[in-house]
């Protein structure tokens, strides 16, 4: 069965594998954009009294760097694996709602373009280029974000862009929950799921519960900015602290949304390259679930300097310290998985082990934040920036690269070069430590966050220079990776079904898989179907040719059409034209109605 090719087939695709690839390339592009923003930040901070960019531009740079990395790079990179790999791991032909899946992707792409358009459209708002990008920080604290203090369209781009992106994540959340729970192959009991799929499931529950809270907060901000409401206006009796609560009620589960998938990837990668099952699978799964629940109880540790009072501070300090426990448990289980294993030092394994080491460091600085008195010294300084980047770069990014090197053969049919991969890893590993480790000291020596320059008197000039060098080393590493990718397209070693000796179902089918994934849906009898263990032999891989024709749903235009309605609607407040809302709403409605009534058999 040959697959359709050409632009139309991609625009109308409902195939989870194609959508996974779309997510990957789009997200990686945004990762490069965010990385460029980081390089500009670091270039500005390389020396005291830097003049590379103005303060206003700097505010936009760090705001867009954070917003882009969190919402347009890390989350969608994880989503590319949710999309491509989860249906394969559970033995399904696709996700529960393939068109909703496509819709999620298009909304993500359009939301990301909407947000980044702000870099270029300054002249349309009677400002210069590079003047109207969001500039209130990725966390957009009120009341700086009120119209009075941010009169331009910058914050409007931010709040509208995030609302659009939220819809993408929510839709995908519902889709993957149903997929993982309801589309498993016979015998694929929940406690036989690969850890990556389990962590994906927990992540989706976090998404569908956390995103509505920030939606409310953003709606309030929108009404304050456009309709004269006073949700965050002190003079009206309100308080900007409400924004902080709503943002961090979302924001803390969000960081677990960012890390759990990477933890899942690592939990799949380590056993493969240690040729040993994950140590304490049950405990690792339950720890992930526990982290999900407990993640809801710690949000005000982002607000220790706000004056919540001793009771609130103590409660959140306690809950924050407690949440380190299930995380620590996972780390011990990963180490125990490697211990005594037959280690193969592939690039994927390097990244997975790097993840463990870097996440430990990030976790330790996190634990120091859990103490309010200590945090009072650390908050709003570069110490926090160090923590964030150790857990998100050293954690999530390294974990994602482990997944990239691990699943690249499955997704593309070719193996990335291992020697180039090792170069990539070491350059990135050294680069990130050079970039972020000094920040612990820079912060404690007194350099605040979000300042566009600093005085030489502060005594942090040399450390900042080292940090900048590290950032550029990371850039070199990424270039090595890009070269690896480009070279592999033509010269990469073709991959068999299972180049690594993996245990889970995705390795039982060709690389890349046929459009229907499994010629015959397997019946699963263990947690490690493809391995021989003391308890069972390896499964029979599905036959190369399906015994009977398999129906595969066709494509659909309507997810894209419906998705287009959203940024069009968002243009209305930006341009102060009411009728644009109706055009966007019409697009959305037409898209939904045609979608609902078109014949589409899963």
């Amino acid at each position, binding site marked *: 069965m040959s697959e359709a090719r050409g632009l139309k087939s991609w625009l109308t695709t409902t195939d989870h594998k194609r959508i996974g690839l779309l997510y990957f390339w789009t997200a990686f592009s945004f990762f490069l954009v965010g990385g460029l923003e980081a390089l500009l930040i670091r270039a500005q901070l390389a020396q005291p009294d830097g003049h590379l960019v103005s303060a206003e531009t700097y505010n936009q740079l760090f705001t867009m760097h954070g917003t882009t990395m969190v919402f347009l790079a890390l989350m969608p990179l994880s989503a590319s694996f949710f999309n491509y790999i989860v249906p394969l791991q559970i033995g399904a032909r696709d996700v529960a709602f393939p068109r909703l899946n496509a819709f999620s992707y298009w909304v993500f792409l359009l939301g990301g373009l909407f947000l980044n358009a702000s870099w270029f459209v300054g002249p349309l708002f009677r400002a210069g280029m590079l003047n109207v990008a969001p500039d209130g920080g990725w966390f957009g604290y009120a009341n700086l974000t009120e119209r009075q203090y941010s009169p331009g369209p910058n914050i409007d781009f931010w709040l509208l862009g995030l609302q659009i992106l939220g819809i993408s994540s929510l839709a995908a959340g519902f889709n993957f929950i*149903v997929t993982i729970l309801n589309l498993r192959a016979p015998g694929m009991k929940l406690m036989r799921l690969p850890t990556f799929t389990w962590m994906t499931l927990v992540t989706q529950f976090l998404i*569908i519960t956390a995103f509505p809270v920030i939606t409310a907060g953003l709606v309030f901000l929108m009404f304050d900015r456009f309709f004269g409401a006073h949700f965050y206006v002190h003079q009206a009796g*309100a308080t900007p602290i409400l924004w902080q609560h709503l943002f961090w009620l979302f924001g803390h589960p969000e960081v677990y949304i960012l890390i759990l998938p990477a933890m899942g990837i690592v939990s799949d990668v380590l056993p493969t390259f240690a040729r040993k099952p994950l140590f304490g699978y049950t405990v690792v799964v339950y720890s992930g679930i526990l982290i999900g629940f407990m993640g809801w109880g710690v949000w005000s540790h982002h607000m220790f300097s706000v004056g919540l009072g001793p009771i609130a501070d103590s409660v959140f300090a306690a809950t924050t310290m407690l949440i380190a426990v299930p995380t620590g448990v996972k780390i011990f289980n990963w180490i125990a998985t490697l211990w005594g294993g037959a280690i193969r030092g592939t690039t994927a394994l390097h990244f997975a082990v790097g993840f463990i080491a870097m996440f430990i460091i990030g976790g330790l600085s996190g634990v120091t934040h859990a103490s309010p008195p200590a945090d009072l010294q650390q908050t709003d300084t570069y110490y926090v920036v160090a923590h964030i980047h150790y857990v998100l770069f050293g954690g999530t990014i390294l974990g994602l690269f482990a997944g990239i090197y691990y699943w690249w053969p499955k997704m593309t049919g070719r193996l990335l070069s291992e020697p180039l991969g090792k170069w990539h890893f070491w350059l990135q590993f050294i680069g990130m430590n050079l970039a972020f480790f000094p920040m612990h000291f820079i912060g404690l020596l007194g350099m605040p966050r979000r300042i566009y320059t600093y005085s030489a008197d502060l005594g942090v000039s040399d450390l900042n220079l080292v940090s900048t060098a590290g950032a550029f080393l990371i850039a070199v590493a990424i270039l090595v990776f890009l070269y690896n990718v480009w070279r592999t397209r033509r010269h990469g070693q073709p991959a068999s079904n299972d180049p690594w000796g993996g245990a889970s179902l995705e390795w039982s089918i060709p690389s890349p898989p046929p459009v229907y994934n499994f010629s015959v849906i397997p019946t699963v009898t263990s947690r490690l179907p493809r391995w021989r263990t003391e308890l069972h032999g390896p499964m029979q891989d599905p036959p190369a040719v399906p015994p009977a024709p398999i129906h595969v749903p066709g494509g659909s235009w309507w997810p894209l059409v419906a998705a287009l309605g959203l940024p069009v609607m968002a243009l209305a407040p930006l341009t102060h034209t009411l009728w644009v809302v109706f055009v966007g709403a019409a697009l959305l409605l037409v898209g939904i109605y045609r979608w609902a009534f078109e014949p589409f058999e899963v």
Partner: protein
Amino acid sequence: MTHAAVTHHTSMGLDNRKMAFWAFIGSECLLFGSLISTYLVYKGRSVVGPYPHEILNIPFTSVSTFDLLMSSLMMVLALAAVQRGDMKWGKIWLFSTALLGLVFLGGQVIEFTEFVHKGLTMSTNLFGCTFFVLTGTHGAHVAVGVLWLLTLGVRALQGKLGPANAMTVEITGLYWHFVDVVWIVIFTVVYLIQ
């Protein structure tokens, strides 16, 4: 609303769409919970009037509440009719539910207009913005529900709705009852507890 519902085998034996919808309703609890929490946190903090006790009309809103509760009854009767194949009463109850929904919306329009005339707008005070955003969001949900019900009603008139796709009606019902249930909370928390 699509072709006849093909009951695929599923791992948990539950309908995919129904499971997705309950997950969606769970998610909506957090949305309305945030809106209601904000209303409660800002209760009594308005610096200027009009204040709730001056302006909320309990008799009028009680009628609205009855209206919405009765619409839930009609919704459930619609489902029962469609499930047993009685499309005549299925259509009647579906359109009746939509009608009561429209009546509710009409009541909201009247109420909002009244309030604006009495000097309460989105920008007047905290009561204004928290009230209008909370009840406005709820009203928007009702409006979507009415549109959804009318669409189903039209499909029924076209002969495209029947017991084979009763699940669609059931899920419509889940949405409608949830919107009703949110109103139950709003009626108590905003109107009765002042």
